């Protein structure tokens, strides 16, 4: 199994405030992950967990403060720097808001061919249009869309255009950052089916980031749960869904509201709120809300325990 993307102990710190009240916090504290070819890794977490920052790091929009990121066999980020000769086009993205993902002033053909102009600059106009047309075929849009403008499309169709743009350079990985969160339920279902079909056909890998637990479980082969900048549990979708081990994963699953009366009414809220990232709790960042916490949890950052080759968690009380 070839590894398409790997991240090792990646962290991203930000400083806020002006002198003398400058403070540093870690949006991503310590994340390691790897995605195999043709597979989907789902990242699930609530607001402030660092999943958006993680997506920016994988896309090369910012350099990680610590740690290493590899795409294929090439290291693209290390020691706080981005390697300039990063191979382009291998990683593309689809974002949350389809409306702002497409430049309203440009035609669909210009939008969809943009990545190609970077990865294959020698292509002529006819070839570019042909590749764009092929990408639109893949996402189920008519080729006549090429001459149209974004405002002529609905939200779901715009997201398909965004997917076509992500596909056109034959990427190995597409980062889907809350890509279905702004879509209606029925449209989201269509798009998720489309993405799965494309994965079967083309062997692309996905990094599927979402706060919607059920969608992550549906789309992903493996799932990582993030809390305050760390991955607290990773497993296959079945392991996370049926045999979760970390208390936060339990809490997320417990708070999910399925479209079922019995399950929805059995859901339990975990107390408290996500702590201020500028003043994270000592030791395990979840200990203040954890039903299992012992004394040690308040002082010692937990270690990663691997329960199986695919299933591991960050907890000292398991």
């Amino acid at each position: 199994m070839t590894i398409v993307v790997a991240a090792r102990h990646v962290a991203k710190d930000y400083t806020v405030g002006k002198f003398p009240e400058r403070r540093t916090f870690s949006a991503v504290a310590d994340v390691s992950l790897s995605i195999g070819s043709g597979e989907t890794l789902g990242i699930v977490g609530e607001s402030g967990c660092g999943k958006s920052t993680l997506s920016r790091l994988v896309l090369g929009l910012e350099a990680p403060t610590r740690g290493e990121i590899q795409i294929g066999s090439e290291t693209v980020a290390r020691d706080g720097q981005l390697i300039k000769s990063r191979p382009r086009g291998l990683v593309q993205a689809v974002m949350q808001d389809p409306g702002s993902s497409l430049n309203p002033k440009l035609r669909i053909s210009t939008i969809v061919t943009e990545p190609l102009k970077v990865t294959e600059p020698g292509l002529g106009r006819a070839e570019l249009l042909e590749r764009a047309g092929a990408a639109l075929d893949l996402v189920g849009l008519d080729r006549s869309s090429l001459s149209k403008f974004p405002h002529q499309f609905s939200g779901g169709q715009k997201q398909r255009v965004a997917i076509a743009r992500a596909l056109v350079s034959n990427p190995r990985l597409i980062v889907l950052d809350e890509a279905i969160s702004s879509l209606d339920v029925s449209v989201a279902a269509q798009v998720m089916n489309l993405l799965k079909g494309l994965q079967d056909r083309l062997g692309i890998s996905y990094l599927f980031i979402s706060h919607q637990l059920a969608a992550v479980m549906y789309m992903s082969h493996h799932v990582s749960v993030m809390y305050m900048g760390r991955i607290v549990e990773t497993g296959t979708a079945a392991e996370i869904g049926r045999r979760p081990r970390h208390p936060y994963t339990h809490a997320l699953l417990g708070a999910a509201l399925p479209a079922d009366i019995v399950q929805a009414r059995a859901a339990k809220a975990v107390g408290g709120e996500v702590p201020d990232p500028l003043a994270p709790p000592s030791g395990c960042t979840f200990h203040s809300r954890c039903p299992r916490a012992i004394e040690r949890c308040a002082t010692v950052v937990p270690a990663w325990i691997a329960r199986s080759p695919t299933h591991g968690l960050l907890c000292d009380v398991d």
Partner: protein
Amino acid sequence: MIPATVATSAPKRRARMLAGAPIISLSIIAIFLAMVVLGQAMTLHAPNQINLALKLHPPALLGGSWEYPLGTDWLGRDLYSRIVVGARASFVVVVGVLLVGGLGGAALGVISGYVGGTTDALIMRCADATLAFPIILLAVLITVTMGPGTANLIIALCLVLWARFARIVRGQVLVIREQNFVVLARSSGVSGVTIMLRHVVPNVVNTLIVVMTLQIGWIIIVEASLSFLGAGIPPPTPAWGSMAARGRDFLTTGWWVPAVPCLSIALVCLSFNIVGDWLRDRLDPSLRGGPD
């Protein structure tokens, strides 16, 4: 919550675009542009021809003759013809300032907003410095030190006006920069320059057009004020401002001499402002209609 707009056919859209257009203002601008383009061809007499026998004749509607429809000035020169030719002088200044100061300021605003960091800080501090000066004073200082003439006047106004454009455009760029389509372009490896040209500029053009239109009136007034103060376009070239200035000595003997150029300035300024406001409402991408 309120549903999106609805698709329309192309002719209907064009009709809608023109609906509510300020006809009078557009007509005044059309006449102004005709004067600029046709120049001498629109005049009735040679604008600089002195004819002391005909001095201070009133306009046609106030007792004069239709041969000199807006009257004559203190040297017997036809006011109407001088207005026509004077329009060109004002127009040249407007175009010069918009092209150099407006486009230049906008370009700096794009760079400042997109690149950020030290570049942004530097450009904006320069802009702040320029904006802090009283405009007329700055323009007078420049023309007095560099000498009179149209070119120097244009330079003076550019130095004063670029900062306004830069600031407004930069504000827009800061918003555009965070839009997903820019972020996606960056993550696809598109170069900064290409992003600025392909993504940022087309999205600031609308604002730029509106700001430019709204500045036209201001430029004309400043040029007129400077000419009034003697620091603008030198005589004998007719310019509306200097015509008003020289004419103020004749307020009692021939009030139309300063009044006609002043009214012309006011009408053209107002028209450009009204059209600018109308454009601001109209130049909206949602104008093209909703999903087909």
